[in-house]
């Protein structure tokens, strides 16, 4: 697993936190490399000297980091060589999904100023994610950030993961502006039966709110990525969900179907939640077929290649973030490893699947 938070030493630990770009050459807002002793790198940021031990096999030069001298910590917010950079807007959320990978907290620290600076320093054409908690609890700040960054960095693209409970009629005009054309909004939808969806996201009325928000988003011309996780709680209704999406939501850009991640709440409730699609691929096949028949773009995520029938393999995406991806030892012998999505580092095994194995 790639380290995102690195221990560091500072010449002055009372220095306030800041954003910097780790660089070999001096430039705007850079922490500039001034010395190397073995794998220890020394950077200079104004009067402050920072020393960071570079993780084995990785290159941190070029990364945009959040530096906290008081905590002896440097966090790699935007890694130059990665397609999977996500900024955490808040840990608060108004839903409580039964399988949440990032269980919400009550407290909130406003980091918008730092996030904005980080985006401004990002490499050309990068896609930057925003997630939470629920980022749109801070709708005004987030919209303002996206607008501001867009005026200076129109090359950047954004992905915002939101439960879409907070879009209102009054947002439409604003969201129609060009700044928001660079944003893909990831919106979870787990079932077409309101009570199934509501009980999965832990909020009564969440489905009804979604059904109100989605046409607002469509009217604003937003690009929408629907996201559905396979669960014991919704798997038997998957074809129905697909029929709902196919007939009522033709304006979504893509439908992402993903297998459960064994982290957060799902970790302790694994056996109540995980559904082995290899044992019964019918609901998944039917759902994909229905959506495909109306021309909807579908991508399957977190699903190892060998666990689905041949006919579904063309829909698989290699998706697990570089910093979380791994393979168990057996997979070394597999001929399709290079196109297989692999496993989350913290649960790297094929044991959950009845059918599957080296191809």
């Amino acid at each position, binding site marked *: 697993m790639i380290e995102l938070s690195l221990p560091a030493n500072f010449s002055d630990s009372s220095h306030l936190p800041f954003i910097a770009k780790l660089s070999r050459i001096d430039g705007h807002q850079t922490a500039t490399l001034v010395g190397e002793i073995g794998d220890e790198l020394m950077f200079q940021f104004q009067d402050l000297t920072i020393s960071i031990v570079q993780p084995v096999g990785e290159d941190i030069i070029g990364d945009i980091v959040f530096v906290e001298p008081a905590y002896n910590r440097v966090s790699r917010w935007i890694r130059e060589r990665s397609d999977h950079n996500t900024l955490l807007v808040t840990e608060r959320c108004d839903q409580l999904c039964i399988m949440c990978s990032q269980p919400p907290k009550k407290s909130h620290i406003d980091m918008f100023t730092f996030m904005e600076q980080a985006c401004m320093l990002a490499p050309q054409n990068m896609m930057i994610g925003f997630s939470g908690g629920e980022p749109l609890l801070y709708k005004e700040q987030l919209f303002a950030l996206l607008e501001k960054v867009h005026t200076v960095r129109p090359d950047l693209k954004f992905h915002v993961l939101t439960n879409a409970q907070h879009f209102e009629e009054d947002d439409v005009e604003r969201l129609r502006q060009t700044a928001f054309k660079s944003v893909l909004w990831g919106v979870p939808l787990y079932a077409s039966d309101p009570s199934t969806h509501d009980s999965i996201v832990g909020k009564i009325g969440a489905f009804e709110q979604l*059904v109100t928000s*989605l046409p607002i988003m*469509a009217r604003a011309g937003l690009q929408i990525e629907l996201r559905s996780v396979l669960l014991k709680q919704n798997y038997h209704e998957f074809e129905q969900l697909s029929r709902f999406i196919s*007939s009522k939501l033709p304006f979504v850009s893509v439908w992402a179907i993903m297998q459960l991640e064994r982290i957060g709440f799902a970790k302790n409730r694994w056996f109540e939640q995980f559904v082995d699609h290899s044992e019964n691929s019918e609901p998944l*096949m*039917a759902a994909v*077929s229905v959506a495909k028949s109306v021309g909807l773009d579908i991508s399957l995520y977190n699903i190892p290649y060998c666990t689905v029938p041949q006919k579904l393999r063309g829909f698989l995406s290699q998706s697990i973030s570089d910093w979380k991806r791994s393979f168990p030892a057996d997979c070394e012998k597999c001929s399709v490893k290079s196109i297989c999505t692999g496993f989350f580092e913290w649960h790297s095994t094929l044991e959950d699947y009845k059918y599957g194995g080296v191809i």
Partner: protein
Amino acid sequence: MSSVFPLRFRRLSESSLVFANEAGQFFKSNDRFLERLDNEKLTKSDQEFLFDHAMASRRAGDINEMSYLHRLASRLRPPTDLSYVILVPTLRCDLACSYCQVSRAAINAKGFDWSDETLLNVKSYLSKSVSKRIQVEFQGGEPTLRLDLMSQIMDFCREHFEESRFIICTNLSVVNEAFVDIISAEDVFVSSSLDGSPDLHRKQRTNTKSQTDEFFKNFSRVGELIGDRLSALPTLDSKNLPAPSDFLDTFDHYNMRSVFLRPVVYHGFARKRHPTSKDHQSVWQKFYEACIYEMIARNIGETSDFYEEYYLTLILKRLLRPGEDNHIDLRSPNWLGYDHQLIDYDGRIYPSDEARMMARTGQVDLSIGDVFAGLDEEKRGALQGRAFNALDPWCSQCPYQAACGSDPIDDLARHGRADVPKPATAYCQKHLHIFDFAMKLIYSEDKKNQHSLALWLGLPSPIFLGDVLQ
């Protein structure tokens, strides 16, 4: 209470009708529903069905209204810049096929090739397109008589556009080393004619046995060289149709399982010599359906290497997927002379191949300019009057309108005018037949049919493609 998006209907059988709205959503029902609809006495379950299938809305701006408007809008594409161009570097040809009197000149004739000046102007004309991608189809005459002109155009396009694709339409009567060299590039495709059995091919096309043998030898050789970059169009004459299974065998022999079935269209004098009557139409339709059923029978058990009819697949996609609209004969609005143009041997520009034929036979001059003086916007504008089938009084009541198209040039060519009542046009008759046939397959309970539908649409498993209201 919900408001239903207006429905049109058409009888499918004695007991069933197909209903559809302008956005192209459809379902099957019966006369009792029609009566209830007519008397404005929909039952609660009718209303629920319509609401659940997003064909009625409960209040302005709700999810169903939004999806309806979105579907409508995605079927209305604005005109785009030139991205598909047919080039005719020469009108000369070395064969004399029985149905091709108009689009050829004798092999040694003078003045039927692009001049240096024309070539120069074609390039500068193409360079004005803002499209990133271009498809160039070389036609003739026999374009391979001028390999030199073709390679100059290819070099130019590869340089100028981000992505180019070339299709050489050739009779393959001569395959020399220069030709082999040109088609070795991955962006070059070859399209030829294969009429079924060698016997039929000779009758319609190559005349002598030696020419026929030469063609089949060349055809196999090119197939070996470029694999599936070679395709073939059959020329089928309603008066002389092969048996479906022989026909498919011939194509299968060359690994061609995706076939485009259409009857030959005669132009000019040939039309007078070969009149197509109503009888021929029904003969053709029987042949067409028999071929499809033969394909379906052969598809059992297949997963990837399956038979399909190109146009039927397109029709199915148009029925089910708004925004699937890149075929010039099957789209509405059909912007003529925008994204799709033909540049003739003399540099004149036409909106389509058929438009050029009409000019050749002296029926009507539909050229929209030439590469020397540029486009004549006024002439091009005059063609757009019938671009929208939704504005046609017949089409606007037809349940297939959203999926169907508009082809005023075809109407002109066959009927001499563009304002013939739709049901009397060959275009409408042909399309009604295929749409009805597609519905029959969609609503068929036969597993074989469902299996093939899934293959044609790229679905992992067969599913119900059409809803039914009891």
